């Protein structure tokens, strides 16, 4: 019975319009945020990713305020600008005050997000006759994805990957050893800005499916999971993209089985499960195998001690 249901849901990805595009849109998000999230995680910039995701919210409100329409592309543009803006403000706080980076990010995140909520609250009480529903970008509304939305997301994702491929070695070197990269002549300020920009684009892709609040998990969890399985950057990026994409598809499938189940949070739960499995079961670094190896090591030590003490006793007996 359950198997039948799983099969029918799986087939639904190909046959059912809604599930097909929701899964596709979610997969696009997962793949993009998975790949780019590797750099976020390796640069220890997870909080930065969270800050720019939250900073996108007021951008949506302002875009509606000034343009007055719920044109999807315009709202995305507003979100991108403010997400970028949030990043700049965070960096500005760090470089001009004595406030450390994590505090600066926390401040930026809260202020921008608060501004966004104030704006949405203001819009809810005034708004023309068609502003309703801007708060769907808090947690996403994946169920409303249609073909044209997914095409737009695909274009954005293609852009991200083009940049990633073109600048792969540059991103690698500024993440691993930025001062060495700088000594070779790579302009790290501009490269950092470029990397931030593609992450902003990933955030914009994520607004529809998981929303502002949960976006950070899509940047971090796939990469953290992938890191457990490989110590090669290229493989890590590929694996992370696969994990992200899978969680998008599986999350969509699961959320389509029950009425009233929101897709975004289910995707996040899925990738978290993948992360949990990776933490425990990965051969080199997983907890389970580390535990077993330690057990074996201490067993071997015990055996050695036993052998030695046995020999001692033999010798004693012979004297």
């Amino acid at each position, binding site marked *: 019975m359950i198997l039948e249901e799983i099969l029918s849901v799986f087939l639904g990805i190909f046959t059912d319009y809604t599930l097909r595009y929701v899964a596709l849109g979610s997969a696009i998000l997962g793949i993009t945020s998975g790949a780019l999230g590797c750099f976020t995680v390796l640069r220890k910039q997870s909080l930065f990713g969270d800050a720019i995701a939250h900073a996108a919210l007021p951008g949506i409100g302002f875009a509606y305020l000034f343009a007055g329409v719920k044109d999807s592309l315009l709202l995305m543009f507003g979100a991108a600008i403010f997400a970028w803006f949030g990043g700049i403000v965070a960096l500005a706080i760090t470089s001009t005050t004595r406030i450390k980076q994590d505090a600066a990010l926390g401040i930026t995140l809260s202020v921008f997000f608060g501004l966004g909520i104030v704006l949405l609250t203001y819009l809810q009480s005034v708004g023309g006759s068609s502003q309703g529903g801007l708060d769907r970008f808090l947690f996403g509304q994946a169920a409303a994805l249609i073909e044209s939305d997914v095409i737009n997301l695909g274009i954005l994702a293609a852009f991200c990957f083009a940049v990633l491929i073109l600048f792969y070695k540059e991103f690698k070197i500024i993440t691993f050893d930025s001062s060495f990269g700088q000594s070779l*002549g790579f302009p790290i300020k501009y490269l950092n800005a470029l990397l931030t920009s593609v992450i902003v684009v990933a955030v914009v892709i994520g607004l529809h499916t998981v929303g502002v609040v949960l976006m950070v998990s899509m940047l971090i969890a796939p990469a953290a999971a992938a890191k457990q399985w490989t*110590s090669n950057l290229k493989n890590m990026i590929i694996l992370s993209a696969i994990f992200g994409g899978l969680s998008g598809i599986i999350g969509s499938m699961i959320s389509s089985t029950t009425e009233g189940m929101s897709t975004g949070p289910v995707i996040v739960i899925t990738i978290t499960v993948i992360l949990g499995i990776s933490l425990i079961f990965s051969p080199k670094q997983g907890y389970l195998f580390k535990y077993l190896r330690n057990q074996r090591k201490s067993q071997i030590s015990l055996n050695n001690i036993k052998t030695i003490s046995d020999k001692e006793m033999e010798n004693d007996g012979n004297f």
Partner: protein
Amino acid sequence: MMEQKSSKNNSSIENEYSVIIKNLSVTYQTEPALWNIDLNFPKGKMIAIVGPNGAGKSTLVKAVMGLVPITAGKVSVFGKPYSKNRDKVAYVPQRGSVDWDFPTDALDVVEMGLYGKLGWFRRPNSKTKNLARECLGKVGLSDYEDRQIGQLSGGQQQRVFLARALAQDAQIYLMDEPLNGVDVTTEKTILSILENLRKEGKTIVMVHHELQTVDKYFDWVVMVNRNLIANGPIKKVFTKTNLDRTYQEKQRMSI
């Protein structure tokens, strides 16, 4: 402050010295890190930079490469600004400045030394890989090319950094405490490689932490504590007087 012999004309100075530093000052916010440094690095010498903690030794090296903003003064490398002669300088940063947990192996790190020559958009290929392999062999780590760098010992990591610098095939090697915390074998390997480079006429500049070995390993010393205290051949300059002056507690800015 050391007076340079200015009787020779400019081109002559450039023939003798690979790096010329004039009047260099570096300030972080309001703290002066380096003040009024006039200094030349002679070619074909093993040069040690010594000084107490916070004296600006790393800053000096970084300032030569423009990695920190220069408040005043000028640096020229083989007669031109650093940005025009980058390919002649190889930088070996401090081992602790990098997260060795990064998912990459020894060969890959060495290959990064060639990214500058590749320039934008071109990708590493079999040529760069083979070159990297060669350099890894020179430091004795051929068997470790697939090893994830976090699994290497401190000495091995330092040798990987050196191999990366070798891959750049530079004329000047700027190194930040490369002998800090390495095993004896590594130290021997590094020093012998550097000595060979020196014999070829390259300039080796090393921020060095261990005063006892300065006269053993180097033939030129730069003693700095925000100001330039002394600069010259070891036998002339590495004296107790200069050491006392360098390592006294509070160094006042002398203009």
